[in-house]
């Protein structure tokens, strides 16, 4: 009897469940309420909300410019624009910056944004755990000259510094509310965090008391999908409105063919996909071996095969939105015969080397084609797939136990980091240090010219093979407006998002 009764209850429960599920429905209708709200599918999820202690682009993308603001910001074209500072002046010796704060700027808790908040925020950067704090290392002192004026003195002139200030290190916190950054965020930006459900979503609510231009949407939701297919399905079923930074170009085509319902946007990013080679030890210490790789790899074919042709060939470590960009794709033209000759000259034929590949879609796709291109030249790669980030960071990045690897370096203006002293690339940074320092301390024109030389030297040294610039692929419902084309700052600004 007991069994039968239990079964009956289970059947009834199942039926009730199915019935309520069907009646509830799912697809969003186009009601007025919905027009106030936009849901964005994102791929990488923030580990927490505290970028002072945790690295990872996802935190900055959620919070910078939406919740936290810096004095300056980077526009879609890579140029600096005012943010919390309405204007700034640079002294003649290029070492002192005077910022005038926006009038009436307030934090979401009602406190006004003062020069003292800026000073205490920037003074605290030295205590950050996030290694990106190094971007503020050139700061000598921060002074609150009066309520609305901040004076920042540098140890030495630096062109790079003001640009870096637009990144997370420039975030201004309320001096009276920064205790639980991992779980709460009080900033001066147009949104507050209404709900933070780890592993699922972050809900941003527009501030009624925002001091600047009012955002278009009342509410923006970031929903996190590890799986690109699940994200694409959510867009197709109407659960989300925008796919931010799609990591699966093969899914892009589905949407490209249906332009009445969807818009597809392909912009640029700061992510250089680098085929790195260990310059310091092993087979690639020999420059001829690295040159062989440069000739052997057909970057156009790699881009087309691995990433559906979405992306830009750059040939160097600098994206086109940076002021010192130069097209370096001609330095190492694809030349299989030359590659073969170099391999024989250097006696590398049949010698095995370790190619450590992060278990990420782009990396495994690239590794497949690169390995076969290298094999054609007589270079024998032994592929080892490594869990990303943990194992790759441990073995390849920290212990330098690798000969070749491939990874997308997403930080802005990271050329001097990636080819700096002690970094896993093992590049002899003495070859660029002086030039880079002079450029940084010079005028803006000297900066651009000097850094161009640095980038060219690195490419000519065959320090690494710069496969392509990672695309910023965004898909959205046709009616969504205000999507930024390029992802060239730490932020994913949502204030402009709206419905047509």
């Amino acid at each position, binding site marked *: 009897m*007991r*069994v*039968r009764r*239990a*079964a009956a209850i*289970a*059947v009834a*429960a*199942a039926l009730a*469940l*199915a019935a*309520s*599920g*069907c*009646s*509830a*429905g*799912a*697809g969003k209708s186009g009601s007025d309420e919905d027009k106030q709200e936009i849901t964005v599918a994102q791929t990488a*999820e923030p*580990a*927490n909300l*505290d970028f002072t*202690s*945790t*690295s*990872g682009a996802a935190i900055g993308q959620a919070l910078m410019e939406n919740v936290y603001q810096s004095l300056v910001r980077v526009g879609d074209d890579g140029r600096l624009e005012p943010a919390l500072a309405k204007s700034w002046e640079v002294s003649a010796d290029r070492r002192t910056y005077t910022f005038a704060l926006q009038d009436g700027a307030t934090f979401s808790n009602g406190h006004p944004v003062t020069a003292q908040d800026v000073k205490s925020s920037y003074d605290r950067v030295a205590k950050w*755990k996030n*290694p990106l704090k190094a971007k503020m290392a050139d700061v000598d002192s921060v002074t609150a000259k009066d309520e609305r004026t901040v004076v920042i003195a540098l140890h030495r002139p630096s062109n790079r510094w003001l640009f870096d200030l637009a990144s997370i290190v420039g975030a201004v916190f309320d001096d009276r509310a920064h205790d639980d950054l*991992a*779980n709460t965020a009080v900033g001066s930006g147009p949104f507050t965090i209404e709900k933070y*459900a*780890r*592993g*699922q979503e972050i809900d941003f609510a527009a501030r009624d008391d925002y001091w600047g231009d009012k955002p278009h949407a009342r509410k923006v939701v970031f*929903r996190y*999908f*590890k*799986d690109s297919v*699940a994200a694409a*399905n*959510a867009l*197709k*079923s*109407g*659960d989300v409105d925008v796919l931010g930074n799609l990591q699966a170009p093969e899914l892009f085509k589905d949407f490209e063919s249906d332009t009445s319902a969807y818009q597809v946007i392909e912009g640029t990013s700061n992510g250089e996909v680098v085929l790195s080679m260990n310059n310091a030890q092993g087979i690639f210490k020999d420059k001829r071996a690295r040159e062989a790789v440069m000739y052997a790899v057909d970057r156009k074919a790699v881009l087309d095969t691995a990433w559906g042709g979405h992306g830009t060939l750059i040939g160097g470590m600098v994206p086109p939105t940076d002021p010192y960009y130069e097209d370096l794709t001609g330095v190492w033209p694809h030349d299989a015969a030359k590659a073969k000759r170099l391999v024989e000259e250097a006696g590398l034929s049949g010698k095995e080397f370790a190619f450590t590949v992060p278990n990420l879609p782009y990396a495994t796709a690239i590794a497949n084609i690169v390995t076969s291109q290298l094999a054609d030249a007589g270079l024998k790669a032994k592929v080892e797939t490594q*869990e990303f*980030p*943990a*194992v790759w*960071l*441990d*073995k390849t*990045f*920290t212990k330098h136990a690798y000969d070749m690897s491939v*990874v997308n*370096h997403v*930080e802005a203006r990271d050329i001097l*980091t990636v080819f700096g002293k*002690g970094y896993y690339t093992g590049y002899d940074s003495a070859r660029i240090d002086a030039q880079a320092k002079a450029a940084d301390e010079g005028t803006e024109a000297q900066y651009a010219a000097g850094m161009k030389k640095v980038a060219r030297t690195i490419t000519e040294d065959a320090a690494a093979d710069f496969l392509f610039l990672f695309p910023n692929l965004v898909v959205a419902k046709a009616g969504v407006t205000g999507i930024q084309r390029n992802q060239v700052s730490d932020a994913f600004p949502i204030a402009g998002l709206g419905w047509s």
Partner: protein
Amino acid sequence: MPGFLLNRALQYLLTAAAASVIVFALMQLLPGSAAQVALGTEATPEAVRALEAQYGLDRPWPVRYFEWVGGMLHRDFGTSYVTGAPIAPVIADGIQVTLIVVIASIAVALALAVPLGALAALYRSRPLGAVIGAASQVGIAVPSFLAGILLVMVFALGLRVLPASGWAAPIEGLGAFASHLVLPVTALALVQAAILTRYVRSAVLEVMGRDFLRTARAAGRTRTGALVRHGLRSAAIPVVTVAGVQLAALLVGAVVVEQVFVLPGIGSELVRAVSNRDLVTVQGIVMVLVLAVLVLNFIVDLLYPVIDPRVRRGA
């Protein structure tokens, strides 16, 4: 009987203790560290070492092991490296979602499997029996994640009647809760129902050959009547055993379906914690899963005498 239960309880305690050692030891062997992951590609080795020291990872492993186990005995699972927040509420949130999905699935599966399995046994040499047998074969062959993907294609992308992914807690509205639950539960339940149907069928077949059923028939009961009145209880023993095992497997294996449907269950939390090398969280989750499976087995042990008086009498 109490002796048997005490014996079992002791066995489970020892298993849990052994599991804690194994889980902890395996975590120590995992390459990579939480500090490295937290600091990313801009980190210097000194910064990584400093953060490891702050997490307490530089202390000898016996100290860390006993601190962890000691904490758990006081229901304190420790503090996550990644969020800086206590782990216990995170586990509670995740296990809640997973339990709802898994228990609903097994309930639906049993509701389907018991009648279908019995029918398959009663009609074993007729077309209906063959059809049920074939259908359950197919069901076993289809992995639940594939069933999930197919269900999404039909009901979320095609008919657009159910959401493709996500989760709504019951307090967010019962309609939303149920609509998010239907597809994952169906994906898991279909496969489980197929497996259980086969067990029910063979259990019923076995019972149908027994003497007491023949006696019942001789006393004037119909075949179905005799089975329902006297047979099902006997047949329930192997089915309950298998359902218990399947429930445990679902609890641990739901991670795959959680990924397909982007559910914030314990499996998703586990994957995230492993990827961040948030080892205290991983250890905590795995221990909770181990305990859940043990408790489940214990419940199944307790159920036997309830179902079958012969077990109660120690026959």
